[in-house]
């Protein structure tokens, strides 16, 4: 029995005892009150059995009449008492039940029971999303588009109500709870073997840190991504370990600098972390030279540092932080005076990086007015303002929530991607451009899907079996269309990870070993084909040799004997 049943039984004790007592008094009384026969002579009471019968139909207000014989005066008097008593008893019991059902605590218990049941019944891989603000909602939509299940935890009931109204393919279990409490995280299914990762996107850093630590301690090895805005926390090791903590401001400014200094590599990164099926990102070529930065908050600091590192001069405009080191001009940037003072005539680009969207748009409009060919980068904070930013036609618009959501999704669903990006960190612009070009053909002009596969008996049974039979399986085999041997599949193996080593963009002759981890990009169709040939021995045989192989085990056995014989002959 669960909580709800116990709560119900405990609360129904008094009403039930009352109903039993009322029935007892009524039945015992009616059984002994003397009756009268047809002739008018007094008779003894009707007895317990008949009395119970009469009270049963009277108490439930069915009322069959006076049975078994017409009643005497005293019997009628007792019946009046019994009628009022039983009706009152029942009413009280029913009112208690109704009151209990309407009680917020009871409904809460009911909801929690339903939620716990849904988590228990989740028998497919799922993620826990803690905090569904703008970024969290984007992450949920991304997971939904990837066909992943997820559980939503947020301490704000309004946000939970909003997420319930979002249209998802599968209705996610939601709960109003503080995810930084370990019990709530466990309740969301942290200990379930199907839980694939936790994303901490709560509003405050402390909660996100608590979530990360809880998940790290209770489920070591489970991917955890936490958003932390504190400038000193990104990439810290210690309790978090590795690349689990994302600082949206620092990421954002790094990307902006990358977009200005190395546009091709920035575009490659965007393709790799993009939502599959989205339009490919546009090409931008931001100029180098003198830049103006409006707004010197956490984001402004990061942008200034990144732009300076990339070899640009930066003039900072801010009113609130004027007087601090690094701020050159006092003002907001929304007026032409401060922009002129910052030297807009000889500037090549301007970054509007305030936390207010309207302020950023105002800066962009004034800057365009003063210098029509200036490169404008705007920071869009709210998704609801998308139409305004589209109307302005800025050169580059960056949305922190979208950047964090994509980053989270890509890293948590494809952990190998992080290593791949680390390996290609020093790549040239030309190399990045060529890879972007190759990736853009894979999915018919849309962002390709990106996935990781481990060569083990669970995920690639046929490949493991073939390798154990001393057959060669190489990258070229995997990239062959299993329906037509002469066609290549629409996919590209980006990386093979083997222990600490491996290969970036391996050639088609690269031979696979058991335990390899592959990072593959391709169309959704190619993903299905590769999964098929990795797990079906006959299909694998076809892509390796170009011949249809026999299906039954007797043929396999025969071929194995033949191979042994050939090997034996070649040795002697």
């Amino acid at each position: 029995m669960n909580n709800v049943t116990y709560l119900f039984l405990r609360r129904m004790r008094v009403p039930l005892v009352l109903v039993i007592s009322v029935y007892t008094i009524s039945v015992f009384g009616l059984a002994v009150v003397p009756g009268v026969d047809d002739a008018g002579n007094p008779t003894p009471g009707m007895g317990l059995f008949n009395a119970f019968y009469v009270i049963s139909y009277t108490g439930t207000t069915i009322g069959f009449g006076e049975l078994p014989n017409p009643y005497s005066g005293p019997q009628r008097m007792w019946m009046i008492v019994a009628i009022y008593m039983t009706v009152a008893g029942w009413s009280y019991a029913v009112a208690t039940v109704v009151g209990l059902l309407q009680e917020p605590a009871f409904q809460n218990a009911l909801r929690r029971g339903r939620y716990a049941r849904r988590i228990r019944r989740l028998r497919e891989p799922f993620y826990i999303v803690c905090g569904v603000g703008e970024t969290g909602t984007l992450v949920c939509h991304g997971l939904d588009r990837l066909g992943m299940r997820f559980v939503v935890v947020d301490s704000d009931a309004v946000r939970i109500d909003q997420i319930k109204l979002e249209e998802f393919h599968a209705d996610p279990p939601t709960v109003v709870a503080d995810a930084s409490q370990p019990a709530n995280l466990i309740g969301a299914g942290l200990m379930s073997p199907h839980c694939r990762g936790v994303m901490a996107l709560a509003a405050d850093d402390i909660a996100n840190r608590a979530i990360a630590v809880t998940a790290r301690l209770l489920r070591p090895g489970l991917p955890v991504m936490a958003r932390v805005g504190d400038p000193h926390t990104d990439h810290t090791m210690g309790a978090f370990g590795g690349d689990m903590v994302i600082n949206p401001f620092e990421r954002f400014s790094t990307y902006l600098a990358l977009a200005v200094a190395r546009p091709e590599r920035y575009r490659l990164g965007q393709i790799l972390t993009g939502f599959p099926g989205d339009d490919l990102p546009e090409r931008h070529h931001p100029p180098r030279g003198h830049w103006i930065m409006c707004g010197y908050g956490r984001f402004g600091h990061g942008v200034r540092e990144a732009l300076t590192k990339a070899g640009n001069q930066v003039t900072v405009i801010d009113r609130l932080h004027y007087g601090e080191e690094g701020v050159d001009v006092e003002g907001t940037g929304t007026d032409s005076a401060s922009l002129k003072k910052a030297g807009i005539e000889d500037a090549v680009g301007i970054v509007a990086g305030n936390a207010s969207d309207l302020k950023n748009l105002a800066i962009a409009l004034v800057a365009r007015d003063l210098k029509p060919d200036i490169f404008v980068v705007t920071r869009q904070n709210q998704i609801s303002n998308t139409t305004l930013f589209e109307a302005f036609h800025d050169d580059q618009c960056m949305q922190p929530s979208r950047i964090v959501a994509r980053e989270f999704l890509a890293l948590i669903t494809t952990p190998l991607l992080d290593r791949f990006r680390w390996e290609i960190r020093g790549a040239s612009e030309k190399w990045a451009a060529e890879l972007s070009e190759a990736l853009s053909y894979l999915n018919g002009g849309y962002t390709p899907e990106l996935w990781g596969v481990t060569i083990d008996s669970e995920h690639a049974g046929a490949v493991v079996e073939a390798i154990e039979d001393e057959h060669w399986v190489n990258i070229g085999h995997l990239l062959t269309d299993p329906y037509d041997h002469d066609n290549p599949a629409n996919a590209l193996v980006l990386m093979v990870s083997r222990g600490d080593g491996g290969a970036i963009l391996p050639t088609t002759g690269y031979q696979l070993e058991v335990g390899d981890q592959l990072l593959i990009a391709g169309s959704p169709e190619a993903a299905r084909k590769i999964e098929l040939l990795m797990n079906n021995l006959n299909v694998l045989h076809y892509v390796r040799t170009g011949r249809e192989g026999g299906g039954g085990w007797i043929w396999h056995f025969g071929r194995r004997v033949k191979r042994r014989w050939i090997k034996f002959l070649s040795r002697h």
Partner: protein
Amino acid sequence: MNSEKVIFGFFITLAAALNFGFWTGDMDKIEFHNVWELAAAIVVSLIATVLKFGDRTQLGAVHLATSLVADVQLIAAAIVWSWAATSPAGVTPSEMATVVSMSAGALLANLVSVALMISEIITARR
């Protein structure tokens, strides 16, 4: 003193006492067994059952189970008696023996219930 404990102990003991009172005497003799006592035993047993609702402990679960056994046995006895009493032949000694043996089963369940209550008290004292 806890009034909840008093009420609980009162009903458990009363259920066992009424049950014993009905059961004692020759099995097949109607005059040794009072119909009112049986009815009272049923009512008190039902109340005891309701009082045991909602206890989440292992002991509480066994308590509830014994009470449910006593209820089933006593209500079965009452049904047999009512059936026999409304038949033309009246209550025969063999039917009376059935009723009393059923109440004996209920008595066993009630005694287990009392034993559980006492054991609970003893462990609590320690």
